[in-house]
């Protein structure tokens, strides 16, 4: 196959990847978009195989690798619970990062096969691209592993603040730049592996101080990094499919990070510097906590909702933890049967990754046209009889609007307090991830339903009959 045809085919797969993302503009077109993505990937792999014409042995190795990886991937994709999506995405990011490191390691060992020079005499430009790709890839790898451990609950979601962490990070970054410069001048493999090591350490140190509630930003940011790593390797290989994809993924992750930061009214820098959500002291201290709250039972809640004409359900991370989405849907069906209008309101940073709640509701067969984003539904709360809040604490806290001293001041929130009655399901009186006391609990129109989100909702369903 001529080089020109190869290049054009890679371009075709790049364009198909763009169409895959374009499809996601609506759920109706999204499935077709995903198929475009698969076709694009098939073309890229087919073209590469036709280009390198591997020997029989190499072919066997490639098929073996694809079978092992494909098998693991397919089984994981089939079995994973929808509530575990944030962990899975973090895990997948780590693989892209690690793959970038291995590809670069292969390239430095056999530069001729990659068209970047001969052993020991690799073009400087290729070395720059490669070292950027490998550094970002290694940071993505360990960063994603830490994010995975935190999201999966294998590591505390609390920020871990090491002494002098900013200084250490800056020092490592400087060392990294020096090492990259040394690699470009010497082409030494030892320096290459030092770059990998320093980047691996940096990945751990960057993510460790970031708390659980900031994970939506972290996951998006790592998504972006995996893209830039791919683009770096794409430049080394002079492969347009890889360059286009890297740019797409890089900008996609960057935009998601931006949306998540805006949803929390925090700057990207303050999220990255970490430490948020570590301190548990609320602004007003213990005096607030001794105030009485109105507590209700499932029976009370069922009665109120049955007699309502409009109910808005506000899911949060608590729904994911309790796996309550199916019970919630069932409850909504019962209410609709009673003639109650039911809608869902989703805050951009509810859950642990962008769109987390939407996926869970979709899994429970909630039609997507009943689910609304913050800007589209916030005015509806004033006309709603009931706001049913399931483990969404910080995103409903009115202190974000009224208390300039609050750490979450300025964050856009769902105006649940404007509903006639707020039913707030919570396991206990603890504060949310931001460590802030929620003023909402003490309002006259709030009824606290203490218990597991799933069990409480099931109780309500029983009482609705």
């Amino acid at each position, binding site marked *: 196959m001529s080089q020109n045809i190869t290049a054009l085919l890679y371009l075709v797969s790049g364009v198909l990847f763009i169409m895959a993302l374009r499809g996601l503009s609506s759920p109706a077109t999204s499935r077709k978009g995903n198929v475009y993505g698969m076709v694009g990937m098939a073309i890229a792999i087919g073209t590469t195989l036709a280009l390198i014409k591997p020997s029989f042995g190499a072919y066997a190795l490639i098929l073996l690798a694809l079978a092992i990886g494909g098998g693991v991937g397919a089984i994981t994709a089939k079995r994973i619970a929808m509530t575990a999506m944030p962990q899975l995405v973090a895990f997948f990011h780590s*693989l892209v990062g690690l793959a970038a490191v291995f590809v670069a390691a*292969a390239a430095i060992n056999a530069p001729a096969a990659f068209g970047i020079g001969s052993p020991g005499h690799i073009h400087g430009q290729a070395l720059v691209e490669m070292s950027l790709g490998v550094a970002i890839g290694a940071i993505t790898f360990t960063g994603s592993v830490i994010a995975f451990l935190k999201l999966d609950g294998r590591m505390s979601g609390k920020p871990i603040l090491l002494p002098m962490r900013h200084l250490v990070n800056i020092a490592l970054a400087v060392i990294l730049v020096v090492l990259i410069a040394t690699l470009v001048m010497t082409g030494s493999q030892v320096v290459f592996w030092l770059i990998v090591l320093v980047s691996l350490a940096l990945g751990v140190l960057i993510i460790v101080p970031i708390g659980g509630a900031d994970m939506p930003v972290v996951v998006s940011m790592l998504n972006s990094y995996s893209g830039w790593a791919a683009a770096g390797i794409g*430049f080394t290989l002079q492969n347009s499919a890889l360059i*286009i994809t890297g740019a797409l993924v890089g900008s996609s992750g960057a935009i998601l990070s931006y949306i998540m930061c805006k949803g929390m009214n925090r700057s990207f820098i303050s999220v990255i510097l970490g430490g948020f959500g570590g301190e548990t002291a609320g602004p007003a201290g213990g005096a607030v906590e001794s105030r009485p709250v109105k507590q209700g039972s499932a029976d009370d809640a069922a009665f109120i909702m049955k007699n309502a004409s409009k109910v808005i359900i506000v899911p949060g991370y608590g729904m994911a933890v309790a796996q309550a989405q199916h019970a919630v849907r069932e409850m909504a069906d019962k209410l609709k049967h009673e003639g109650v209008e039911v809608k869902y309101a989703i805050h951009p940073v509810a859950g642990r990754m962008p769109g987390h709640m939407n996926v869970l509701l979709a899994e429970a067969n909630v039609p*997507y046209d009943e689910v609304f984003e913050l800007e589209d539904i916030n005015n509806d709360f004033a006309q709603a009889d009931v706001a049913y809040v399931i483990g969404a604490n910080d995103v409903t806290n009115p202190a974000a609007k009224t208390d300039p001293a609050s750490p979450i001041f300025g964050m856009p929130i769902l105006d649940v307090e404007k509903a006639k009655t707020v039913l707030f399901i919570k396991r206990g009186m603890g504060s949310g991830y931001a460590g802030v006391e929620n003023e909402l609990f003490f309002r006259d129109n709030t009824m606290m339903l203490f218990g597991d989100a799933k069990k409480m909702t099931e109780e309500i369903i029983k009482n609705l009959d």
Partner: protein
Amino acid sequence: MANLTPEQALEQARAAAKAAQDAAAAAVGAADKAQGILGDLSAQVASAHAAASAVDPFVFQFSIFVMAIFVGYYVVWSVTPALHTPLMSVTNAISSVIVVGALLAVGVDWASGPGAGWARGFGFVGTVLAAVNIFGGFMVTSRMLAMYKKKS
């Protein structure tokens, strides 16, 4: 002027002629210099033309990269927030196109050098990792997308 002696007038006329001559010489020098600069310029332009016919491939790739960032920017902003999780999983899947690099490495000729064995090994692991992502990413995305339904 009126009471100049003929000698003085002659002297002044000579001086004027000398100045004019100097100016002319300077003008010629300047013209020469200008021509020289022009010549240099045209030479530079010519060499620039020569370079243009062989722009470093990096520049083309970089152009693709920059364009793709802009395309990505507009395409991603048009993604509905409800599909942000599938967006992440599908971007994951497509970034595994890095598998093309891993495949190149597995296909390295044994005879190509002492590093060939290493390259093949790294390529093999890289292919496995990317394959997990390709199959896992696309499949979990289609599993999620199949769940999004309209009100019946």
